[in-house]
């Protein structure tokens, strides 16, 4: 009987059942669901290699940690949880100690200050669980007054090596600083680091200023001012604060300017005889209309390659988004949801368009594909408007205003995933932010 069983089993296997039982190749599994949580990192205080560097070592490591944690993608492990510390920049890393506190990334650094007042910072990044450095070590240098920029650059490097996309910490934001009540508000241009530090004012508060925008390399700012009583466009050199008016045509109002990616061409809205269209001004040329319709066309924004322009128009009876060739031509409507769409801004990556949406009495900041698909609303409040992209296209900054006569405007930022919504610190009320490119 036993033999008969073996024979039957053998026949069954010989007939082809065997391949189904015996596995072919390594065991294969597919993981389609993971977790989304900040990556925990440890950053011991940078080592001061001389006495003059003591002050900067602590501040530098503090700014690097704040930059990374501020993205919402990373979580700093408190230093009092450390099992071991780093006392020598070149000492081997005790990976077991960092694994024990679940630090997945470790940032070590050292700071020295030379006699001429030059700060040198070197750092290394380690993948703790792989027990290997993540990229090569890097050394950065600068004046003592630029220590914050050095810290931002270190954070940019760490961010880039872990996430795989460029950073945005070493950048600035130009915005409108506001003072006084809503019915008598004073506005002036100001510029600051992306995190609200180093605020500097570019204009006085004698006239109203609106909608400043950086040039592609960040050396100039173009904005709208009511200095003459009518809205006119000005271009200002950020370094010298010298400015000049742009294409002043009598009997017209110009506003909503923005640079083309080449940094020379400017696109803006021009109102003449009650009608508003989009115009383009090239160096040494005259303003050329890109649209010609009885409706209002405004808020133009170039695609990163300069081939297309997205703008808002009410030609359909309600305010919607359209895009057209950079040379003009028939525009294509791209927004079809409920409500009104405005202030479109093309992402520096070229894949998304941020916009302001008003629907059912609420304002939203949202993003959509450049063809209008996959619309996602990231925020919702009493009044959100005027989005601007971070240099890496990952974060959007915008203006959020409170209700009531005393409701102040403030700057907020949000990740394009909709997470990490937070207020950007400013010295007072602020509006109309515009992000610069990464500084050189």
């Amino acid at each position, binding site marked *: 009987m036993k033999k008969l069983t073996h024979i039957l089993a053998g026949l069954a296997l010989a007939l082809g059942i065997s391949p189904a039982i015996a596995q072919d190749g*390594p065991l294969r599994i597919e993981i389609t669901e993971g977790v989304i949580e900040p990556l925990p990192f440890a950053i011991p205080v940078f080592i001061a290699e001389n006495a003059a560097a003591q002050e900067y070592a602590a501040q530098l490591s503090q700014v690097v940690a704040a930059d990374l944690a501020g993205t919402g993608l990373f979580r700093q492990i408190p230093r009092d949880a450390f099992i071991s510390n780093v006392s020598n920049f070149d000492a081997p890393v005790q990976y077991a100690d960092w694994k024990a506190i679940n630090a997945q990334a470790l940032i070590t650094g050292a700071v020295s200050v030379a006699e001429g007042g030059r700060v040198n910072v070197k750092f290394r990044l380690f993948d703790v669980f*792989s027990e290997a450095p993540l990229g090569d070590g890097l050394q950065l240098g600068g004046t003592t007054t630029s220590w914050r920029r050095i810290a931002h650059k270190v954070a940019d490097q760490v961010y880039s090596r*872990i996430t795989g996309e460029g950073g945005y910490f070493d950048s600035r934001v130009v915005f409108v600083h506001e003072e006084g009540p809503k019915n008598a508000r004073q506005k002036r241009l100001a510029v600051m680091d992306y995190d609200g530090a180093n605020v500097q004012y570019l204009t006085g508060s004698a006239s109203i200023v609106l909608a400043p925008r950086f040039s592609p390399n960040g050396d100039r700012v173009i904005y709208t001012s009511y200095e003459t009583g009518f809205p006119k466009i000005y271009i200002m050199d950020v370094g010298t604060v010298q400015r000049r008016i742009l294409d002043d045509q009598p009997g017209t109002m110009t506003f909503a300017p923005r640079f083309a990616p080449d940094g020379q061409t400017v696109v803006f809205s021009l109102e003449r005889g009650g009608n508003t269209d989009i115009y383009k001004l090239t160096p040494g040329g005259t303003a050329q209309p890109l649209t010609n319709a009885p409706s209002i066309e405004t808020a133009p924004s170039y695609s990163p390659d300069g081939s297309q322009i997205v703008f808002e128009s009410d030609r359909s009876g309600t305010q919607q988004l359209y895009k057209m060739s950079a040379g003009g031509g028939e525009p294509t409507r791209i927004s*079809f949801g409920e409500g009104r769409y405005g202030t479109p801004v093309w992402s520096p990556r070229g894949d998304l368009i941020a916009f302001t949406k008003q629907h059912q009495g609420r304002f939203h900041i949202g993003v959509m594909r450049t063809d209008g698909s996959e619309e996602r609303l990231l925020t919702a*409040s009493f009044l959100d408007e005027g989005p601007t992209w971070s240099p890496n296209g990952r974060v959007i900054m915008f203006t959020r205003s409170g209700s009531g006569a005393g409701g102040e405007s403030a700057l907020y930022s949000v990740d394009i995933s909709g997470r990490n919504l937070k207020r950007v610190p400013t010295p007072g009320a602020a509006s109309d932010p515009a992000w610069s490119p990464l500084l050189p």
Partner: protein
Amino acid sequence: MPEKLDKSTIISGGAHLGLIGWALIGGVIHWESPAETVTNVSMISGDEYAALVSNSTDPAAAGPEVPEAPETPEPPETEPETPEPPAPETEPQPSEAPPPRAAEVAPDEAPDTSALEPLPEAEVTETAPPAPEAPVAAPDEPPGASLVLDSSRRPKERPAQRVAPTPAVAPEPDAAVDTEMTEAAEPTPAEEEPAQEAQEDTAPEAANTEIVTEAEEPAGGEVVALAPTGSPRPKSRPARRAPEAEPARAETSQDTSDAIADAVADAVSEGQSASEPANATPSRSGPPMTAGEKDALRVAVQQCWNVGSLSTDALRVTVTVLVAMNENGTPDNGSIRMVGSEGGSDDAVRQAFEAARRAIIRCGSRGFPLPAEKYGEWAEIEMVFNPEKMRIK
């Protein structure tokens, strides 16, 4: 024996005959039964007719029935009546109905263009100077329809493919508000102050709901245009390791000491060698991993697969990682290598692989939940990290 055989044959023969007889008789009965039911019906009606014929002795009784016959012609009278009223009614109705239809259709065709051409021009030129007022007046009347309809019909086509499927077919209220807002955004917010002050916290909720709805239905018609995300993954299976196949064979030969079992093993090996290339040797044998055991491993790995710090580009990368396992269920960290990837740039692939490697090392440091007796099955594991469900959409 012959007696028993005779009895058995007799019994079986009798049983067979009984069966045949039952089949024949039962079949006949079965066939006859429906015929009886049919005849029964006819028989009943025939008797009734015969009884009626025999009982029909009163001719006078038939007389009064005659007037009933003329009553039957009445139905023909009613029949023409029924067609008559509808006929005249329907005839005038179509004559009345067409006018409204013609009135509706006609303006859409030739008459409309001729009649509307002057009107839109007149209104557009009038409303154009006060630019913000033009869109308000336009949607109210047909003249503006030449402009408004073109734009309002488009949203009806595309919302079906959009995340927010409800079309924007309400230009009038929007347009009315639009004129106010374009000039100054302050007045309208001021009117709605109290109701919305406490709603600022709902911002993340709105974002979340939008993300969820897109995540639930990512395969819209428009998304197809962005094809890279949805393409199939024809990944090639990595080359097998020859050395691991040998211990598997040894196990089978040790387990089956019996000569017949050896023959079975030979049959298995022959079957495999016939269906696969010569260099492909069976890697292992024994009971395979159950679905539950594989799920437990999958859950253990995904708990540490953190994609929160990955770039949007890296979230489009699917990486296939091969890892050799120790017998205690921990991964051989040095053996972790990427054997395939799909999508994304080189940097994105590198980031995706590092996130996968971190997941394997972190959650495998204390050993994955794997059945020790099936080590031959999981001595080497190929893990595919597919972030399709984790993408920012």
